[in-house]
């Protein structure tokens, strides 16, 4: 069965399908969501109005047996940044949508009636029904309700109370194979789903459903080469599965780039208490699991099962970014409190990075003291979950809270919170924060790999030389990778092992019976970036928005005592390709 585009119109509550237009045929994941948003959403529209569209697209390799290919891209105009947005997550939905032959699911319009709806996606199409019982419920309750209604193997995409309240920090959750959740975190896409009045999407796939492979033998061979590279590379084969991503707490702390106390210092005194090494030891002691995949077919397994002191499940997918944000940035040194907050944020449906950086700014403004983990938990549960006036303010994100409290040290680009690497001490990632079409986003062009981890080359993190070019090359490659549905961590082997990169191109070719070259893939990445950039320019952004906040140039960042020293012209060089 040929792939089709599914369209759900929430204004008149109809669902239709259509052929895939020829120019969309070679696209998937981010390439497709961004192309559709750019083609169909007026750049100046209100992100929460009826003209915005929420687009889900599995990656080109999703649904196949390719390792780590189960990422689902979600796109729209972002209510947080006002830019185009793609955010992706693991979980089972991507593979399921792909197996149903759904190239993209587009949700458009807005219902008249003040009611919540569920979409049920099956081999027979999409059914839209009113959902009176789940309003106000957290993501875990929604997942349980869907499993009860449709069975264990149901895929679920949902929003929590934050999405219903259209908070700019709201995310979209995707159920994983164990019934836990992963999130398309950044940019407030949960608010867009809330504005369409869609509380959740349940997906069911017939057991025998499979994606067609044009050239099975070639495909199998490439799959094998790829999986072998992932298992052999020390980062994806050993480091990530053993210590998870939070091994970076100590790495970035040693490098003097771990933003601490709302981006004041580059090292956190209590780093070892929240480190990946400590987490690893706690997990073993408490009978959790150090390796865990966020979707079937992940061989890297950076995720984990983290139990509390009583040996009871607390969190999975407990990531570096989340631990850093509430840990070093808010000076909370209790890993259990951070795990508790992580689980609360998943349930309420808010981005852990944006929310915790917002708390750090609020601490700077005097709302609560630095280090007050209990205070964060209280505000999350009593204010954000319930939508009190304070909860709504936090729900606006770091920039909104910075304004409300008159704070000048507000770490955002295009209103999106800067993640866990200070751009003064890791200059390559600073260029990515400035120029990414998504607002401050480390995954868009992960220069940390080359600046600090020494994977895929070596560029001095404290010098300006080579950073613009590095970020450009990485952003182009990442845009292409995000289209394949591959987890970003395959980049570690792909940057170092040439056969791994070739295998990705071979797999796409064999899946569709086409003959892309490595250059075509680069061209695809460039086109995606250009499409997104043009959308942002048409929405009113200029090169002056591609800048870091002033404090990064004014305030010396210890221990290296460095400032952000790129000129505007140097940053603008990024777009010369």
């Amino acid at each position, binding site marked *: 069965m040929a792939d089709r585009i599914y369209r759900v119109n929430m204004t008149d509550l109809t669902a239709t399908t259509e052929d895939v237009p020829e120019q969309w045929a070679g696209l998937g994941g981010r390439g497709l969501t961004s192309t559709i948003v750019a083609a169909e959403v007026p750049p100046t529209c209100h992100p929460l109005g009826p003209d915005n569209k929420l687009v889900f697209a599995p990656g080109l390799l999703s649904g196949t047996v390719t390792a780590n290919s189960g990422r689902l891209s979600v796109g729209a105009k972002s209510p947080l940044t006002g830019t185009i947005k793609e955010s992706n997550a693991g979980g089972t939905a991507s593979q399921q949508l792909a197996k149903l032959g759904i190239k993209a699911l587009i949700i458009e319009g807005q219902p008249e009636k003040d009611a919540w709806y569920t979409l049920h996606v099956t081999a027979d199409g999409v059914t839209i029904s009113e959902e009176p019982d789940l309003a106000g419920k957290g993501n875990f309750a929604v997942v349980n309700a869907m499993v009860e209604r449709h069975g264990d193997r149901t895929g679920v995409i949902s929003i929590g109370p934050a999405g219903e309240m259209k908070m700019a920090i709201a995310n979209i959750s995707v159920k994983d194979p164990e019934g836990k959740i992963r999130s398309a975190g950044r940019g407030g896409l949960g608010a867009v789903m809330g504005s369409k009045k869609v509380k959740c999407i349940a997906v069911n796939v017939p057991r025998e459903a499979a994606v067609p492979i044009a050239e099975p033998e070639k495909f199998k061979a490439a799959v094998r080469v790829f999986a072998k590279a992932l298992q052999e590379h020390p980062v994806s084969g050993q480091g990530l599965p053993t210590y998870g*991503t939070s091994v*970076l707490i100590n790495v970035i702390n040693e490098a003097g780039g771990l933003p601490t106390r709302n981006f004041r210092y580059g090292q956190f005194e209590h780093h070892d208490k929240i480190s990946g090494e400590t987490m690893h030891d706690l997990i073993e002691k408490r009978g959790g699991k150090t390796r865990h995949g966020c979707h079937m077919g992940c061989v890297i397994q950076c995720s984990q099962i983290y139990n509390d002191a009583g040996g009871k499940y607390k969190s999975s997918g407990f990531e570096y970014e989340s631990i850093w944000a509430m840990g070093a940035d808010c000076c909370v040194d209790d890993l259990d409190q951070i795990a508790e907050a992580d689980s609360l944020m998943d349930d309420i449906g808010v981005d852990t990075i944006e929310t915790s950086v917002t708390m750090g700014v609020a601490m700077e403004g005097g709302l609560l003291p630095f280090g007050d983990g209990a205070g964060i938990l209280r505000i999350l549960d009593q204010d954000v979950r319930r939508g009190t006036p304070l909860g709504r303010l936090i729900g606006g994100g770091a920039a909104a809270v910075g304004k409300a409290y008159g704070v000048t040290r507000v770490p955002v680009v295009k209103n999106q919170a800067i993640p866990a690497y200070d751009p003064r001490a890791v200059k390559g990632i600073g260029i990515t924060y400035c120029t990414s079409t998504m607002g401050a986003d480390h995954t868009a062009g992960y220069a940390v790999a080359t600046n600090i*981890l020494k994977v895929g080359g070596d560029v001095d993190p404290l010098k300006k030389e080579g950073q613009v070019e590095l970020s450009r090359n990485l952003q182009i490659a990442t845009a292409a990778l995000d289209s394949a549905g591959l987890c970003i961590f395959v980049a570690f082997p792909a940057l170092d092992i040439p056969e791994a990169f070739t295998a990705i191109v071979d797999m796409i070719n064999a899946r569709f019976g086409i003959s892309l070259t490595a250059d075509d893939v680069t061209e695809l990445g460039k086109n995606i970036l250009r499409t997104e950039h043009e959308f942002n320019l048409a929405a009113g952004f200029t090169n002056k928005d591609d800048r870091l906040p002033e404090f990064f140039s004014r305030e010396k960042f210890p221990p290296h005592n460095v400032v952000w020293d790129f000129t505007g012209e140097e940053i603008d060089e990024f777009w010369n390709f």
Partner: protein
Amino acid sequence: MQVTVRLFAGFRIGRFKEETRQYDVPVTVKQIVTGLGIPEAEVGIIFINGRNASLDQTLAEGDTLSLFPLVGGG
């Protein structure tokens, strides 16, 4: 000469987290690594005083050396 050595991730197993060590003659990162029984090929990230360094670099009095296997995340 005094040097502080900090070990991370798997390098800590059976060794230590942090130790201040005495050396009578100038010493390179490579010599310290070998002295600790860590295979050179396993060394991923080296910092001296928070700056990326190489195996051949020589340490000076009061330096802090941090050693990681090849790890990543994001």
